[in-house]
Structures are given as C-alpha cells and as structure tokens.
C-alpha cells in the first residue's frame, strides 16, 4: 500500500513550506509536491494607497530581501511620476542594492544553505546550523561573518532607516544623501567585503569542490534540472542587479527572448493550480506545459544560477575571474541546482567590488539627490534582480496617484514549479524501497534550499506558509505514518 511522507516545518529558508511525498507499493517515490499554503493579499490591500508610499509598505512582503522590494517599488514609482533619479540618487540606490547582495548572500551561505556542506548533509541536525558552522570554522571567522553583515547592513541603515524594512526611495531620488565622511567609511567596508568574499569563495572550494563526494552530488542528475533561465543583463550582456533588459535562454543556452521589463506580461504567464496558493510562472509564448523539465518545458529559473547561465559574464574584474573558473569546471549552461551556491558566492564578490566602485565615485556624496520634475503618467513597472532572482512590481494609479492596480511577480514564484520538480527528483533519487532516514530527508530539503527560497515573497498574495512535513498516507488518503526527524 502506498504511503505519504511529510516534513514540517521545512527549515533554514525564509518562510513556511510543506512537502508531500507519495510512495508507491514498492516504497519508491510515486510523486512529490512542494506546496505554498499561505497568502497575505498585498496586491489588494495596497489599493488606495498613495503610490509614493508603496516603497515603504512593500518591504513587508519579505523581511529577508526587503531591499529589492523597496527598490523595484521605487523604480515603479519613478515611472508613475515620470521622473528619473539624479546621478547621485542612482548611485545611492545602487549602493543599497550592492550592500544587500553582500549581506543577504552570506546569510544564505552561513545560516541557511551552507551548513549542509560545511557540516555535511548527514551531520547531527542539532549541529547542522550556524552554531555548528561557528564551532567548525572557529570564532574568529564567525566574528568576521557577523562583521561583514553588520557593516553592509549599516550602509542600508544609513540610506533607508531599517535594513529589515527599508523606508527610503522617493520618485526621482532618495530622501537622504551620503556625507563625505560616510563615503570614506564605505570605501573601507568595501575593501573588507572584498577580502571576505575571497575567503568565502575559498571556503566553498576547499569544502565542496575539493570533496569528491560533494562534487559528485553537485554534478549528479538527481540535483540537475533542465529548464529555461531568465535574468537582467546590462548593455554588455553582463550581470546587473539594479537595471537592464530581461534575457531568456533555452535549456541549450541559446537566447530565445530579449525584452524591456515593461513588456513582462507578454512573456510571463502565471498558471493556477488548486493545490497551491502560489501562481506558477512559465514562458507565456510557449504555453503551460505542466511540471516538466527538458526540451519540452516552458518553465524557467531565476536567481544566481540563472544569472550565470543568462549573462555573458560579470561586471567586475575579480568576479569575472571566478566566473571564468566556474565555467571551466561546469560549462554553460549549467543545470546543476546545487551550483546555485557557487554562483551566489561569486555574485557576493561582484557586489563587494561594486561597493568599492560606487564609493570611489566622489559624486556619491553629492547634494543633488532629488529630481522633482514630475511628468505624471499613472503607470509604472519596476524591475530589479533580487538576490533570489527577477522581481517585478507593476502599479497603476488614478489621476491623484492613488494605487488602482498592483501586480507583483517575485523571484521565488518564478522558481516555484522548478523547485517542486527539484524536490521530486531528489525524493525519487534518495528514497527507495520505503527507506527514509533523517539524512535522506535533509537531502530532499537541500534541493529547495539551493534556490534560497523566500516563501514570504512567494506568498505576497495572501498570508503564506509552506511547511515541509512528510506524511505517509495510503491511496485513500488515510494517514499511516508521519515522518519527522529527530
């Protein structure tokens, strides 16, 4: 008789999640689902709000990646008021984005996803976490992790009040400028961040790439998924986190679409399934083809691995070198889901280098931080690369600038269907003959952890929850057993 496995809550990710794994009579995996079980309704309760207040409300979609929401919103509001930020204001916004990339990528590597590698997938779950990592890498390193996070979040605080809920961003600018002494201090933070980024990459190479067992895991088909990829690129087709054109490549790495983010609705469709609150994005022109990978899929992925596959390179020299090394090992496109971790650390290096570039520009402490030459349009679509991938905020207003329409497409939503597939493949690869251990279940969790999913984001529509719980049921749906981990 078939069984169902449930894990609850899934851990070391942002938000709540639920995974159901159905076993057949032989105890092999018949099917598996990752469900989003919560909804909050931002798209509706933001109606009637003044557009310029939106950058201060939407950070509550996600407190782990609030800066991208604050920024996509600010850019949408720029368009609503028909105004471009001044040179200095744009530098300040880009500084906030770069600082966010550094702190957020390290939260993932050291707190969320990294412990699976640093401690090992089968490590005692009581130690498979940041505290275990501290025990292993030592207190001095731990203090550096805390320091790099603190210093980059202090930059966000300077610009936007609260790193977990940024309040900055005005149409055409920013509310507060950077003082000259602050610019000098940021240069120092940038240097520290670059050195830390080099260390983190070396740690990844020593821990993961030098370990044949891990490398085999990274390269295994179980953790592979052939999809399309979407990301923002700059004029040189290099990675850009603040602005650019959206480019899509197919599973063979060939460009199939290149468009301005304002045209997103022509390219992105959201499919509705009755078993999840999340809308499943896909390439609209290909049509919904279901939860499938390979040449016949219409699913695409976003985030660090997508940016690696879509862009022709990095925007900064040290990160470019690391990118070239990754290409020499994995080739392009790389469909290895666990390679998200590697790409993420290279991006943190690019972001640290960007911090330095921006801080080196004396105009960062310029006084011209507002462009108030408004040419009201009543419609705005703002797009940025959030740490977890493409983020789109689309607002429309009445003639007083009060919101009448909100459509949000967030990174974890693009990745929702692929993540479900990755979980299913991992479950099928690791769970055989009804044998389920804590370590095997953790390997299933590793399949979604690589994406660094942000379920708060994914569930912006109402109040979201996605617990990972393994319940074993028979065909009639009667619960036979609930598997949880010790």
């Amino acid at each position, binding site marked *: 008789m078939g069984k169902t496995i449930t894990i*609850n*809550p899934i*851990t*070391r990710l*942002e938000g*709540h999640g639920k995974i*159901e794994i159905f076993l057949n009579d032989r105890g092999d995996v018949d*099917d598996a*689902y990752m*469900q989003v*079980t*919560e909804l*909050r*309704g931002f798209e*509706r*309760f933001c109606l009637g709000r*003044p557009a*310029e207040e939106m950058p201060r409300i939407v950070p*509550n979609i*996600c*407190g*782990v990646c*609030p800066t991208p929401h604050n920024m996509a919103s600010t850019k949408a509001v720029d368009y609503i*008021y028909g105004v471009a930020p001044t040179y200095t204001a744009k530098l300040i916004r880009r500084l906030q984005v770069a600082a966010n990339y550094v702190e957020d990528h390290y939260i993932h590597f050291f*707190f969320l996803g990294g412990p699976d590698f640093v401690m090992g997938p089968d490590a005692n779950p009581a130690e*498979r*976490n940041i*505290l275990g990592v501290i025990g292993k890498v030592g207190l001095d390193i731990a203090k550096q992790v*805390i320091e790099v996070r603190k210093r980059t979040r202090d930059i966000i605080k*300077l610009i936007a*009040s*609260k790193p*977990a*809920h940024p*309040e900055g961003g005005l149409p*055409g600018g920013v*509310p507060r400028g950077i003082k000259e002494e602050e610019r000098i201090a940021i240069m120092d933070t940038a240097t520290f961040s670059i050195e830390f980024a080099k260390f983190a990459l070396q740690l990844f190479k020593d821990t993961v790439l030098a370990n044949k067992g891990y490398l085999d895991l990274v390269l295994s088909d179980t953790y592979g998924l052939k999809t399309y990829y979407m990301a923002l690129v700059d004029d040189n087709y290099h990675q850009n986190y603040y602005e650019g054109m959206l480019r899509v490549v197919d599973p063979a790495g060939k460009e199939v679409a290149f468009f301005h983010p304002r045209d997103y609705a022509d390219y992105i*469709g*959201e499919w*509705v*399934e*009755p078993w999840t*609150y999340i*809308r499943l*994005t*896909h390439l*609209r022109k290909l049509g*919904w083809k279901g939860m499938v990978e390979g040449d016949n899929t219409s699913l695409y992925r976003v985030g660090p691995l997508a940016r690696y596959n879509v862009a022709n390179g990095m925007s900064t020299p040290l990160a470019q070198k690391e990118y070239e090394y990754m290409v020499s090992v994995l080739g392009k496109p790389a469909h290895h889901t666990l390679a998200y971790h590697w790409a993420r650390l290279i991006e943190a290096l690019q972001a640290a280098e960007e911090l330095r570039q921006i801080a080196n520009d004396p105009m960062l402490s310029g006084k011209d931080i*507002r462009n*108030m030459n*408004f040419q009201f349009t009543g419609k705005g679509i703002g797009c940025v690369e959030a740490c977890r991938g493409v983020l789109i905020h689309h607002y429309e207003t009445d003639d007083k600038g009060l919101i009448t329409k909100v*459509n949000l*497409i967030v990174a974890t939503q693009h990745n929702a269907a692929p993540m479900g597939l990755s979980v299913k493949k991992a479950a099928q690869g690791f769970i055989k003959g009804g044998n389920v251990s804590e370590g095997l279940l953790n390997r299933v969790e590793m399949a979604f952890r690589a994406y660094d999913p942000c379920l*708060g984001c994914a569930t912006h*529509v*109402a*109040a979201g*929850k996605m617990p990972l719980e393994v319940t074993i049921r028979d065909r009639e*749906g009667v619960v036979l057993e609930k598997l949880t*981990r010790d």
Partner: protein
Amino acid sequence: MADKPKMAVCWLGGCGGCDEALVDINEDILVLAAAFDVILWPVALDYKYHHVESLEDGEIALTLINGSVRNSEHEEVGRLLRKKSKLVVAFGACACFGGTPGMANLRGKEDIFQWVYRDAPTVVNPNRNIPEPITIAHGNQLTLPEFYEQVYPLGHVIDVDYYLPGCPPPPDRIRSMGRRVMSGDLPPKGATLAPTRALCDRCERNQTKPDRLTIEDVKRIHEVEADPGKCFLAQGVVCMGPATRAGCGESCININIPCRGCFGPVGGVDDMGAKYLSAFASLIKGKTEEERKKAIDGLEDPVGYFYRFTTASSLLRKKRDTSTKA
C-alpha cells in the same frame, strides 16, 4: 546544555524581518546562544514542531513569536508554544498589532482570490482553477490550510506576557529585553517593552515645532523637499510621531522620512488612528469649511497613514471597505 534555560523563536504570519532583526544584535547573538539553549528557530535551526511537543508544559523559559495570526496553523503553533513557555513575547509590529498585512482586513478573501487567480494581467487560467482545501492530484490527496476571515494580532489569540513593538524591533530594544529576562528584572505582565511617551518627545526636530502648530495645506512626501532639521508637521507632511510610541531610535526621521507608526500607539491608547485623527484635525487651519477641506486635500489615504501597522488591532478591524463578504 541541560542547565541552560530554553528559548524558542518562531514566525507565524510574518515576513522574516523580525528573525533578521534578532541576528542584527550582531556579536551578542553569541551571548544569546551561550545563555540559552535555543530549541526552535525555523529560519536557522533544523528542529521541528514535534521537538516542541515533546517538552513539558512551561519548559521553555522564553519564546519570541513574530508575525500575525492569519490561519489555523498559525493559531495551533501559537497555542503549542504558549503551553510550553513561561514567557511569551509578541515580537514586532505584526505580532503586536497585525502589522501592514492587517490592512487586508479591509478587504475580503473573495476580492483577493478574484484578482490573484482570475484578473491579474499575467494569469493564465483556462481551467478556472482556484486553490482548494483538498485536491486529488494523480490519485494523491493534497491539503491546504484555510484562512481566517481576518488578520489577528497574537494577543487576540493567545495570552501574551510582553510586547516588543517595531517593524522590526531595533537591536538595542532586543538586547535590553534579553538582559531583563536574564536578570529577572521584568515589568508587570502585559507591558510593552518601550517608553510610554510619544516619538516627538525623543525627536530632535521637536524643538522646531511651533507652539501653535497649524497646517494650511497637507503635503505628500514626494511633493516637498523636506528640511532635515524641521518638524514634518510644521512642513505640512503627515508624521505619526505625536501618536506613536517612542523607542525606535528615530531611524526614519534620521533619513528625512516621516514616521508611519510601526511602534504602535503611545501608552494608554488602543486606537492609534482615532487618537491621531482627533489631534490632527485640530491642526488644520482654515476659516471656512471650504478652506479646511482644501487644506486636507493631500490627505488622500487616512487608513494608510494613520493605521498602517495597527488596522488589525484597531476599531476598524472588522470593517470592510467593499461589498465583498468572504
């Protein structure tokens, strides 16, 4: 390990920002880890709910719960943690007052579903699917929790010992809470762990507020080049400072942005928006009804300004602004 008091951190209908805020105490997180045996913290640790179920009642010394209660699962987890904990702190604006998602109480579930699964420009839904509590997919049964009709602050659902407001609570308040819990120096049950007075009392710009403050023309934030040294209200911009509890460190004021009230009402006040509205109305200057009307032209969204974080704990909490029933 056995000698250390136990601590739990959990999110309900939250955004994760309160969990990040806890990490924002920086190196003191190591002090916290040394002082407490953290037995649940889903964002960082792999403990599951059954670990909590296996504990004795009251065995957890301190539990920090962030997020509001929006569905039955939130309530169940909240009740479980209450039962197992000596002290429960409602951590952050959502747990204390419902937070910004509480503004959803002014809209029905059907209204939300209609947009999200039918009308949004990117929706492709030829089968007219809508999320269902129970679905049979390929012969397998999948379930989803059901939403409550509204967002509830934590204290409306379980007994809360202390409230730590803010979106999110700032690091120095979190440290101070930790010290008070560890030393046993705690205020009476039900207290808010922040000053009772208004933000204006702490605001440096307060000195620039005229003795007789009047507003002739309410301005929206993008319409003014705000003077960073001058009271926002004196510049005609809505600032929630007079009605908002102090203790945030004035971080928004410091980036030249007016307060929106994430610390909730001052001591002794339940309905923050009503309190503010009565005070604000008295500032409006105008000899005639028409002049007064014109003065508040810029005040387009009283709910979004006055109740941004507290709709769910206010008198508005069950009001719907449309005919949707849900």
